[in-house]
């Protein structure tokens, strides 16, 4: 083939030497080829479009098949990582663990004369690291607020929250049908439950327990009463207004107490709250009142959550 090419080249050279060959049409009179007007690229055909078509067609199905396998593999590898981690951790239950350092020593040895509480755990969570527990109460408070946003139906205000709600409305107001066995037992049990809850709250600084557990027990008592006697009865002594006031009041009292305690502590001023002698009921400074307040708060929260899930209102 290249011989033909050479001939062509020779011809070109001869023409050039000859000098009389006409330069090819310099300014083509043809239709102007202007980039913008070129025919728009026709769609499809390009690999990118084919990939998209495949994804639309069977994207979801393939993911469904592949997802479990990946999930299992991911979790197994994660689990093995954790197990290897545990293998490298300090051994269980040794005194040489890093945990048993001067921090634990102070917590145990001077918890009595610092906080007046015999139960070191209460001392820690309510005095040494008191601020954390203040915010514990706030977590509960926010959770209830969030649930109210979601579940509370303000029927009489006419807010058509969700048309769906209207259909099953009858079930909400359904009062528990008169069940004598349940009512009798609750009549006997509820006072003791509330009393026991109060006991747990009061003795938080002496024995295990405290505001949170006591509150939960009291809450359970309230819920049992509600289950037995229905909303009408309970509204007589524990309606919406009371509920709000108790909840917010308890929180505010707790905050005020804690602010006073922190401000005094931070500025190294004596806070004038008597610690009382250890072991007595009215001792351990601010821990007792805090336990009471927290107990109330937790009880209201428990009851509130149940009521919202049950009736979308109190």
């Amino acid at each position, binding site marked *: 083939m290249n011989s033909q090419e050479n001939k062509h080249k020779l011809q070109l050279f001869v023409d050039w030497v000859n000098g009389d060959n006409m330069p090819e049409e310099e*300014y083509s009179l043809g239709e102007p080829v202007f980039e913008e007007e070129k025919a728009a690229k026709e769609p499809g055909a390009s690999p990118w479009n084919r990939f998209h078509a495949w994804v639309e067609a069977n994207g979801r199905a393939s993911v469904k098949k592949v997802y479990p396998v990946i999930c299992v593999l991911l979790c197994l590898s994660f689990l093995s990582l954790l197990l290897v981690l545990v293998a490298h951790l300090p051994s269980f239950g040794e005194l040489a663990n890093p945990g048993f350092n001067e921090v634990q020593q102070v917590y145990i040895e001077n918890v009595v004369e610092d906080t007046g509480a015999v139960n070191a755990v209460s001392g820690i969570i309510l005095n040494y690291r008191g601020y954390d527990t203040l915010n514990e109460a706030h977590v509960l408070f926010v959770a209830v607020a969030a649930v109210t946003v979601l579940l509370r139906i303000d029927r009489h205000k006419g807010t058509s929250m969700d048309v769906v709600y209207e259909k099953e409305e009858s079930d909400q107001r359904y009062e528990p049908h008169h069940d004598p066995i349940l009512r009798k037992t609750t009549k006997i049990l509820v006072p003791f439950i509330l009393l026991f809850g109060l006991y747990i709250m009061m003795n938080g600084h002496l024995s295990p327990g405290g505001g949170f557990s006591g509150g939960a027990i009291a809450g359970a008592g309230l819920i049992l009463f509600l289950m037995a006697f229905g909303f009408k009865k309970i509204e007589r002594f524990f309606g919406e207004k009371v509920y709000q006031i108790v909840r917010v009041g308890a929180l505010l009292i707790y905050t005020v107490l804690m602010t006073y305690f922190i401000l005094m502590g931070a500025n190294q001023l004596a806070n004038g709250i008597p610690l009382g002698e250890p072991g007595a009921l009215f001792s351990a400074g601010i821990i007792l009142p805090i336990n009471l307040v927290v107990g109330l708060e937790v009880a209201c929260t428990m009851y509130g959550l149940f009521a919202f899930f049950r009736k979308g209102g109190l």
Partner: protein
Amino acid sequence: MSPYWILVVILLPMITGALLPILDFKEEEDRGKRQLFVAIPVILNTILVYALILHKPVGDLTLVHLTKDLSISFRMDGLSAVFAGLVAGLWPLSTCYAFEYIRHEGKENKFFAFYTMTYGVTLGIALSANVVTMYLFYELLTLVTVPLVMHAMDKRSIRAGLKYLAYSIGGAAIAFTGVMILMNSGDPSMTFYYGGSVTESAYLANPTLVQVGYLLCFFGFGVKAAIFPFHEWLPAVSVAPTPVTALLHAVAVVKAGAFAILRITFYSFGPGILLGTPAQGIAMAFAMITIVFGSVMALKEQHFKRRLAYSTVSNLSYIIFGATLMTPYGFLGALCHMLFHGIMKITLFFCAGSVLVQTGREYVHELEGLGKKMKLTFFAFTVGSLALVGLPLLCGFISKWKLGTAAASAGTTFAFVGILALLISAVLTCGYTMPIVIRAYLPREGFDESQNETAKDPGLYMTVPVLILCAAMLYFGMHSGPICDALFAVAAGLI
């Protein structure tokens, strides 16, 4: 004069531009009022600029301190006087041209708003005293000119506008990195000193970084100066109305890119450091490639304004070639070509605009025999093209002459190849301008007169600026003594 006038000069057009949409002149009825409202500030501003050039204010005017070292400050030194003078000189002419041209495009308020604002922003670039200020106005220039490019708001111009935007912002981002490297090596406030602010020790500490920094700045600002790999936006933008293409893409925007490269080369990185380094080699190589490439593409292009746009691409790289020679003579050649190319190219674009307005023809082969009908326009076009080719009596020859001698005296083989590139491009320039002239005046055998019955010269607003420019070309061609001495003083860093 006190340096505060610099601020006045920059802000006056920007305020007029900003006020226009608020005053909201009606399209047709108070066109006269709008023209007055635009013309007076522009002319006033030009007078102020020339007053500033004549008796230069001493010292810098610092507006605000961004950080401890970086500040927004202005100054009128030699180089800024040249660029400001060029812009101030050509702006009134092109505004006058735009008054009539825009009548058939529409949306005049929006057009003149951005048009006058660009005036202020370009002056901002010219008069900035440090790299950060220049960078600020450089970015503003992009943002102010994008609406102008998109003026017609049809699919084509929007796509062109977006392409222009992508290139400019990309370029600015690349340049920003280079500026940062500059900031680290040498005086952090990056104010412009003739001979560069990069200290010797900083360079010796890490020569490759400084060179990479310079190349980043070079290609970053080079995007606006349409250097080879980043030149596509310039021809694409020729869809914009002619006063926009003429002024922005022959004078303001592209020259801002070239001006920025001059500033960076001679006032920030300093020729002393860069002379003979591979960075200079690369920069010069790209400039040379663009010179030849631009002309070749222009030769191939059939669309009238795109052909002129490609010619701008190639001519701009003359300036950059001069800059990369890194000698005072090279700098002088660059300055000369910046001035004279501004005048030449704006004339050609105006003629293209007049042809478009009068006959609506956009392609080169449609211009058959128009020479007789549109006498003045094509006379100006002929003078412009002869100047561009480098005929001795016209200004084009002077700048080619300065560039050529500078390259010859530079002595390196690269410079020698550079001259060859210059000359090849000159031949190609003749290749793409002369056929138009010949075609216009000496129509071919089978040509019938009837096609150009209606074609005649456009109104006074459009022809007067063109003729003034021709006179300027002839004057500078014949009597360029004083101008060249002034430019040499700037190039040698005396003023």
